[in-house]
């Protein structure tokens, strides 16, 4: 791996008021890595993910995407804020985020949701964006839903549309923030199936999830976050087969 790491995080701290959510987290994702972040609620895993595309501003620490570090400056009231908004926008355009609540734009059809960023952020010609959108919608099994509004889709279909929306910009890395937590149990499988296919084709992913069996299956590295720190990390076999930390042992027992 002589490539630059897709994502590199160094000594990340994040504080909300008096509450320190992240207490020095470092993490490197190389191209093709599928990293699952697991941990109890309040362990800071979503915050960690949201710092990667600056939806949250870290209190201290560095984040670099493909070797390019976010330029930060001290914020009023402590912590850091991006010094260069244009840079943040440029880096964000290379990352794709899938949210727990899908966050599709309800006023646009599924197809329009998928073509939005290619046309209005990347500046692709409309015809090309529509072609590509139809391809990615077919990939996630929603070809025939292109002209419907998201409200008419099931939760699982909405999340697959949200994944297609991210695929359309062909991101350097995909960030999944608990992508199945808002779904009815019978709809979880179809979404996990799509993510699993993407992982197998070598996409770089960071995945915050509660689906342990899934994490074990698709990830090449698992990170157990506890109380704002990485308590244990390694291959899925190591973490799930032979957990060292007593907290992780107990966590795995409680969720599997």
């Amino acid at each position, binding site marked *: 791996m002589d490539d630059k790491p897709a994502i590199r995080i160094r000594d990340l701290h994040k504080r909300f008021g008096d509450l320190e959510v992240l207490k020095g987290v470092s993490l490197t994702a190389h191209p093709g890595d599928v990293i699952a972040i697991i941990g109890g609620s309040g362990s800071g895993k979503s915050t960690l993910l949201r710092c990667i*595309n600056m*939806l949250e501003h870290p209190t201290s620490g560095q984040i670099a995407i493909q070797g390019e570090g976010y330029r930060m400056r001290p914020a009023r009231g402590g912590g850091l804020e991006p010094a260069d*908004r244009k840079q*943040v*926008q*440029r*880096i*964000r*355009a*290379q*990352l*794709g*985020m899938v*949210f727990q*609540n899908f*966050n*599709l*734009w*309800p*006023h*646009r059809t599924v197809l329009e949701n998928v073509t*939005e*960023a290619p046309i*209005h*952020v990347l500046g692709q010609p409309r015809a090309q964006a529509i072609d590509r959108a139809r391809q990615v919608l077919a990939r996630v099994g929603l070809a025939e839903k292109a002209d419907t*509004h*998201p*409200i*008419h889709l099931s939760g699982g279909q909405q999340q697959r549309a949200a994944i297609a929306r991210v695929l359309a*910009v062909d991101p350097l890395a995909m960030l999944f923030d608990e992508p199945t937590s808002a779904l009815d149990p019978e709809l979880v499988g179809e979404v996990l199936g799509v993510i699993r296919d993407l992982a197998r084709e070598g996409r770089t992913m960071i995945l915050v999830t509660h689906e342990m069996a899934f994490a074990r299956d698709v990830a090449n590295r698992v990170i157990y976050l506890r109380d704002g720190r990485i308590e244990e990390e390694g291959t899925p076999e190591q973490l799930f087969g032979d957990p060292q930390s007593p907290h992780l042992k107990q966590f795995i027992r409680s969720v599997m």
Partner: protein
Amino acid sequence: MFQSIDFSLLALDAPGWGGALLQGFWRSIQLAAGGYAMGIVIGILGASAKLYGGLVMRDLAQVYTTVIRAVPELVLMLLFYYVGTDLLNRAAQSMGFAGIEVDGLAAGILVIGLVQGGYATEVIRGAIRAVPHGQIEAAQAFGMSPLKVMRRVTLPAMTPHAIPGMANLWMIATKDTALLAVIGFSELTQVTRQAASSTRAYFLFFLSAGALYLMLTLVSNVILRRYEVRARRGLIAAHQAR
């Protein structure tokens, strides 16, 4: 009593007043539409200032909406019109121009727009707050600039929430044009007064004016209803739409 009404007074050509009434009506529509459009622009700016602005912008917007909503509209209109034209003239004179003739229509639109803007700011601010934040975050996460997020996501997503309030404001705008009669604009109410006082046919002319205002409202209702259904497409399933 209807036998005593001389409907020929409504003839389009003089000596009938029908043509003048319709001209006044058209003028009222122009004033209302222009003022309303300006109110929307001010409303979007004001709501943005209140929601995303710094301390100074927020305070300015707050003072503006408070004053607009606290002072009677008639007083505001007199104030904006006379003080506004006075200021313009003084500014022109200080720059070496002779006094300017303020275009009546533009001045009327400005006056109505400033009043509408105060209310529109609050309507739009509320509507923007009703948009789930995740939709805005998703746009940001794709690398959209703040302006693009506003134009592509926030504004279209807040529209269905703003329509009921904004529809109300349109009705108010159409009727606020009548207040401009006090300043002497030859809009529908003013023309009606002239027609009525010179023919003494008060009943006929004020009833006619009322009918025209009512017609405008009914037509507006139909258009607004269609627009609302369209804007809400993404929010409720079609079979639930009323």
